[in-house]
């Protein structure tokens, strides 16, 4: 098998460096070994997507149990503790294990194709990101199986409820350490994407020609590297409070619980934009395609994305309007928050402008995109409402806020991600998803979603606090809760049909041509699915919507293609070390959870820091071996028919990497 890579694409290859022993890197790119050692951004992207979809279903089931419990007043379907665990895990799962990695799946798969790159800048780091994401998700969910069960602290885990005195069980430690690993996943991914976008764009692809989705990938990645250190620090401090007797958040030792809120939200608010900017990027790709017009006001959309990201760091205290901030701080954060409505509004105006005068085709991706605009607009309006602290004084921590962020995160992020999945599925698999079934999914999701979440506005304004596992009938919340639960289940049915559809389409869907939607950007110029090396030629870009210009534009704006040089296309070697490094981290984090805690089969605490040290040694070994195995790589020679219309490479050409 090891030689198929060579024989498939090769004319006789130039001599490759021979490697032996532990530095011999795996060549098998199929099967389990191929998957575990892969550095291909496309396989990694699919790995992210499958993991994210699994966790989306898991978080969805948690949500449905929550809604079932709230369907009638004073139900006792589940205990208060279980309910509290469910909403904690639902929130954490949906944010860190579903929406973020689903966005990362698109970053990984689509972004390099959009910029004409053969892979990301650091392929092995990319693999590390995937394994950290999956293992972080596993670690977090392992908590269900240990004494005390999952954490019951809410997704923002306010101190001092997270102190050992109030949450003595291991669930909180699983949460802390799970989030730490997930943070690593996000950070390595973000550094990688920034480097890739800055350095590896095809010739001629200037920043202001970048597809909007790639722009949003770049901005989101900057948000991640600036925001995640804050939560990393907060989590380390909390870990020390729980395990080593420090008092960062404990009043008795001079700590301040409010410190946690500041650290958390200075991460947490940019996180909101980390969740929504990729969605906006996807929408900005799909609307032009199905309106057959370029994006209206491209520079302003890019700029407003950057402004949203920038302002996102200056508004965190609007989550804390009721914590007793002073008049000046409250006013400043309120007005800065209101400002964010402007760049957000700009995007909506420009999306409408994009469709204005176009020729709109209501395919499934387009329906999801239009649904996104409607519901994101609704979420934006309620956001404007509680940007005003006097209004927020009533709405904070009520179902009104729950309605608001679900409009932004489901109506916004999830609908856009579904639009993206319907849109790019043919590119990824070479098969089409049925449009009729897709529309049924859309209508079920749209109706179910609105029925589930619109009544929550009323619930919030009539006084229902969030995170309460039950309520009294006297409150007058029965009807709204009943309909909300019905809506949630309709939404669930829609998503279930989607999952069945995507599995079916993968095996049985109609074959797709390489450009089924008459699209505009570079990823549609290569095969569906793309070959291992993405592009057989090096694209030379002359226009913003290059593929559209190739089809309908003037001669001067057509793409040029440069054939690979005589050495062929240089590809990165696979590697075991990202997986081993991430397993080391996983063990270290699990060891931290078990630190001085009784675990099953042992009544007493048996572990000090032994497991942590073992895990860190494994991580260290992985990193050293990673460095020592060297960059590696091999060359591929695509079939010349694939670059028949390309100009030959310059003589010294080593091909475009």
């Amino acid at each position, binding site marked *: 098998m090891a030689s198929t890579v060579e024989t498939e694409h090769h004319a006789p290859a130039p001599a490759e460096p021979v490697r032996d022993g532990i530095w011999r890197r795996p060549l098998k790119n199929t099967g389990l070994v191929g998957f575990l050692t892969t550095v291909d951004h496309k396989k990694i992207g699919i790995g992210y997507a499958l993991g994210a979809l699994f966790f989306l279903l898991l978080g969805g089931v948690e949500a449905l149990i929550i809604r079932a419990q709230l369907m009638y007043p004073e139900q006792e379907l589940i205990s208060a503790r279980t309910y509290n665990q469910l909403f904690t895990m639902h929130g954490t799962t949906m944010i860190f294990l579903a929406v973020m990695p689903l966005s990362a799946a698109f970053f990984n798969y689509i972004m390099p194709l959009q910029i004409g790159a053969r892979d990301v800048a650091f392929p092995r780091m990319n693999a590390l990101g995937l394994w950290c994401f999956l293992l972080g998700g596993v670690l977090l969910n392992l908590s269900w199986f240990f004494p005390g069960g999952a954490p019951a602290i809410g997704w923002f885990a306010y101190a001092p409820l997270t102190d050992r005195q109030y949450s003595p069980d291991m669930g909180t430690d699983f949460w802390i350490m799970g989030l730490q690993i997930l943070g690593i996943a996000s950070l390595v991914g973000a550094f990688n994407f920034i480097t890739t976008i800055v350095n590896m764009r095809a010739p001629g692809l200037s920043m202001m020609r970048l597809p909007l989705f790639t722009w949003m990938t770049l901005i989101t990645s900057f948000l991640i590297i600036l925001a995640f250190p804050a939560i990393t620090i907060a989590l380390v401090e909390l870990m020390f409070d729980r395990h080593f007797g420090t008092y960062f958040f404990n009043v008795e030792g001079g700590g301040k619980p409010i410190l946690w809120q500041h650290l958390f939200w200075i991460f947490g608010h940019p996180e909101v934009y980390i969740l929504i900017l990729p969605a906006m990027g996807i929408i900005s790709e799909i609307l032009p395609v199905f309106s057959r017009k370029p994006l209206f006001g491209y520079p302003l959309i890019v700029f407003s994305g950057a402004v949203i990201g920038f302002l996102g760091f200056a508004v965190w205290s609007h989550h804390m309007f009721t914590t007793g901030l002073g008049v000046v701080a409250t006013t400043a954060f309120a007005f800065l928050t209101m400002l964010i409505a402007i760049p957000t509004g700009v995007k909506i105006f420009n999306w409408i402008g994009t469709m204005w005068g176009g020729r709109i085709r209501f395919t499934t991706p387009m329906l999801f995109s239009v649904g996104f605009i409607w519901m994101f607009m609704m979420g934006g309006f309620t956001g404007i409402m509680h940007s*005003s602290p006097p209004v927020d004084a009533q709405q904070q921590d009520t179902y009104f806020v729950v309605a608001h962020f679900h409009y932004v995160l489901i109506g916004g992020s999830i609908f856009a991600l579904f639009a993206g999945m319907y849109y790019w599925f043919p590119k990824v698999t070479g098969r089409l998803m049925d449009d009729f079934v897709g529309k049924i999914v859309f209508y079920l999701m749209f109706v179910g979603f609105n029925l589930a979440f619109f009544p929550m506005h009323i619930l919030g304004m009539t006084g229902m606090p969030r995170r309460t596992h039950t309520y009294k009938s006297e409150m007058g919340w029965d009807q709204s809760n009943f309909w909300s639960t019905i809506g949630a289940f309709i939404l669930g049915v829609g998503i279930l049909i989607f999952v069945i559809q995507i599995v079916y389409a993968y095996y049985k869907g109609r074959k797709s041509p390489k450009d089924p939607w008459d699209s505009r950007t570079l990823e549609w110029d290569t095969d569906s699915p793309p070959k291992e090396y993405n592009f057989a030629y090096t694209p030379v870009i002359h226009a913003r919507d290059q593929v559209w210009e190739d089809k309908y534009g003037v001669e001067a704006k057509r793409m040029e293609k440069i054939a690979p040089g005589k050495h062929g296309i240089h590809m990165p070697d696979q590697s075991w070390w990202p997986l081993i490094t991430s397993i080391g981290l996983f063990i270290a984090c699990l060891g931290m959870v078990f630190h001085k805690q009784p675990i099953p089969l042992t009544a007493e605490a048996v572990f000090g820091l032994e497991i942590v040290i073992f895990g860190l040694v494994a991580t260290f070994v992985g990193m050293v071996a990673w460095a020592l195995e060297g960059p590696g790589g091999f060359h591929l020679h695509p079939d010349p028919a694939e670059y028949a219309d390309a100009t030959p490479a310059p003589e010294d050409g080593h091909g475009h990497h």
Partner: protein
Amino acid sequence: MRLRIRTPFLAAAGLAAGLLLLTVGCSLNIEGQQSALDPKGPVAKNQYDIFMLTLYVTTFIFITVGGALAWVLWKFRQRKGDDPNFIPPQSHGHPMLEMGLVIASAGLLVIIAIPTFGGIILKKVVPEELLDGAIEVNVVGFQWWWAFEYPEQGFYTANELVFPAGRAVKINLRADDVIHSFWLPKLAGKVDLIPGQENFIWIMADEPGYFWGQCAEFCGDSHAYMLFRAIALPEDEWEEWLETQQRDTVADDGSFEPLLAREDWGYPEDKILKGAEVFRQACAGCHSVNPRIQTNGPNLAHFGSRTSVAAGWYENEYDLLYRWIREPEKVKPGNFMYRGFLDRDGRTVIMPGLKDYDLSDEEVHAVTAYLYTLR
């Protein structure tokens, strides 16, 4: 034959109509116990007014922008029989139009920003004209109940905040365990109670009334059961209430015998005396019945005159009170009355709870009856 979905607009319109009906249906209880849409005091009224303003502004945007969106989707959709290869003009933008819309949105925000500033100050600072006659209350939040202290008179009560209508009440908020949030939707919105810091909120009820409040910040297992009542009394009843609350309710000889005249006990004497004995042994370690002393648990002096039990979850009726003491863990999971108090490690018991006492049904009946003599 294959069904084709061609009319997203009809579907959207249907949905909008459905939601509107639902809204109307569910809004019939706008006067619900905790409805912020039914303000009964100046702070809540101000918050309601600004909310309505934001509602008008956003509705205006929804109609204009949403209307434009709907029109575009209708007008420029690909119709049956249209040339599928038609290429619309490839316009790239309109900077003046875009900047105009930016400025217009900024203008709309100013409309909201100005009253917002007034609202921020109103919530923080009692207006000067209301300072005269204002009373002061200290509130401490615990898992999962509220302690109310009247510092000017020097007594404590729990879970029911009584105050005179038409006068400002200055409330100092503290927490001793985790974060809670004091929320009285009809009077003043909410402010958090945070360990290690003192927060402030003020409330005022325009008329006498009975208001429901609830903890709004997730605070552990029984967060959903952490309610309270706020009772605004007319001036004369308020004076009377103040006077009553400061009276002792039990003998100070350590027997815990009620001071209430025996003919008013309402239960057989031996039952009450047994109840006093059970209370002394199993309850008095945490519950003070002296209005001037606050211990670990809710102060129970004058418990018999309260309207609710278990921090507002139950009405104060014999059967419900009995249930609360008989099986507290079922009524309010995780509560300290049952579990006792634990050390910082979360495991070591430093004060026993009812689970350690194993009271008989008869003893619980006795102590239930006894509690009604505390008034």
